[in-house]
C-alpha cells in the first residue's frame, strides 16, 4: 500500500496539487533532504520514461519508412471516391505533405516520398555541463554559425537549452557569460536561450536559494522533455 506521503509527492511532481498544497510540500522538502531526493528521483523517472519512448520502432525516421494515413481512412476514401466526395479525406494529418499516399510493398510497408520540409536549419544545443570552457566554446561556435548563415542567406534557428549542471550558465548570480548572452540575444533574433524549470526547482530546494534566471532566457518545464520534443519536430540535436 502506498502511504499518503508517497501519493502527495507523486502529485507534487505531476503538478496536480493546489498552490497551497504545493507550498506545503515545498516546505516539507526543504526540511527533509531525503524527501527532496525522492522528488528528484521521481522527476528523473518521468524524464527517463519520456526518453525511452521518444522513438519507438515503427515511428523512427530513416530506417522503417512511415506508413501513410491509416489504411482504413484510405479504404474509406476509396468509397468516398466512388461517391464523388473526395474532400479532405486524403490529407489525414495536417502536418503531412500533400501527397501522402504511398505505394505499399507486399509487406504492407510504405515507401514514403522524400518530404519537402522547410529549408530552415533548426538546431537545439543541450548544455548539461558546468564547464566554463565548454560554454565559452559553445557561444563562440554558435556565434560563428549565426554569422556565417546570415552571410550566406541561409535561414537558421538556434536554441540553447540549459538543464541539470548546465543551468548555472543562465543564472543571474552564477553565470560568467551574462553580458555575452545579453548581447547575443539582442543581436540575433533567431537565437533563444532556454532554462529548465525542473532544474530550477531542484536547485532551489536542495540549496535553499532563490534562483534568478537571466531576463533574456525563456523558461520551460522540463529540459529533457523539451529537447526530445524538438527532435521529434525534426530539429538537429547537439549535446555539449
Amino acid at each position, binding site marked *: 500500500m502506498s502511504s499518503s506521503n508517497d501519493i502527495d509527492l507523486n502529485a507534487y511532481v505531476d503538478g496536480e496539487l493546489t498552490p497551497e498544497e504545493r507550498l506545503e510540500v515545498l516546505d516539507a522538502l526543504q526540511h527533509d533532504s531525503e524527501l527532496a531526493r525522492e522528488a528528484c528521483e521521481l522527476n528523473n523517472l518521468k524524464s527517463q520514461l519520456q526518453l525511452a519512448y521518444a522513438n519507438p520502432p515503427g515511428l523512427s525516421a*530513416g530506417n522503417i*519508412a512511415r506508413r501513410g494515413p491509416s*489504411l*482504413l481512412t*484510405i*479504404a474509406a476514401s*476509396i468509397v468516398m471516391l466512388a461517391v464523388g466526395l473526395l474532400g479532405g479525406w486524403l490529407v489525414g494529418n495536417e502536418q503531412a505533405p500533400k*501527397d*501522402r*499516399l*504511398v*505505394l*505499399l*510493398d*507486399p*509487406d*504492407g510497408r510504405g*515507401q*514514403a*516520398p*522524400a518530404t519537402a520540409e522547410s529549408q530552415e*536549419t533548426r*538546431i537545439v*544545443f543541450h548544455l548539461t*555541463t558546468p*564547464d566554463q*570552457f*565548454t560554454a565559452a*566554446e*559553445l557561444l*563562440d*561556435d*554558435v556565434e*560563428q*554559425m549565426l554569422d*556565417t548563415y546570415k552571410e550566406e542567406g541561409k535561414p537558421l534557428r538556434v536554441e540553447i537549452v540549459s538543464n541539470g549542471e548546465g543551468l548555472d550558465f543562465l543564472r543571474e548570480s552564477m553565470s560568467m557569460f551574462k553580458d555575452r548572452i545579453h548581447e547575443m540575444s539582442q543581436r540575433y533574433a533567431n537565437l533563444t536561450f532556454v532554462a529548465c524549470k525542473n532544474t530550477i526547482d531542484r536547485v532551489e530546494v536542495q540549496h535553499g536559494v532563490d534562483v534568478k534566471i537571466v531576463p533574456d532566457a525563456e523558461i520551460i518545464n522540463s529540459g529533457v522533455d523539451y529537447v526530445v520534443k524538438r527532435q521529434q519536430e525534426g530539429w*538537429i*540535436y*547537439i*549535446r*555539449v
Partner: protein
Amino acid sequence: MCERTRLRPSHWLAPVLFTFALSAAAVAEPPARVVYHINFDDPSHQINALHNLENQINAADGRIKLLVMLHGAGLSLLLYPEALDHTTGMRLANGDQEMLARVDHLRDLGVRFLVAANSTRRHHIDPFSDLHGVDPGDMVPSALLELTQLQQQGYIYIKP
C-alpha cells in the same frame, strides 16, 4: 466476442492501392552513418566511448561509416602528454600508448577522427605535431557546424 482476424492490408488492399498512389520514391538502404561527439576529457569515459564504437562496428558487420568529432576537452584523446605544457586551457592529455593503440586500431577499421580547427586554435594546439595521426583531411573548421552538417546529411548523432 467473436474471434477477429487481424487486418493485414497487404492481403487485399495493396493491389487496389497501387493504382491509388500519388507519389513514391524508392528508398535505398545505405550502410549506417554515425558520428560520435566527444568533447570531454575523462579518460575512462573516452575509453568507454571507443569500446562502444568498436561494438557498433562489429554489430554492423562492417556496413557502417563512423566518424568521431573531437573538439574542446575531447582533443585530449589524441594529445601527446609531452605537448600538454604549451597548450592553453587543456586539463588533460590522454594520448598515451594504450589510448593511441586503441585509436589506431579503430582507424584500421575505417573510423575517422575529425578535429576542429576552432578548438586547436583556441587551445594553442598544433594538430599535426601535438595530436596523434591527424591528416589535413581530418580538420574541419568548427565542430558544431560539422555536427550540424553531418546530421543534415543523415548521419546519426551519438553523444557518449
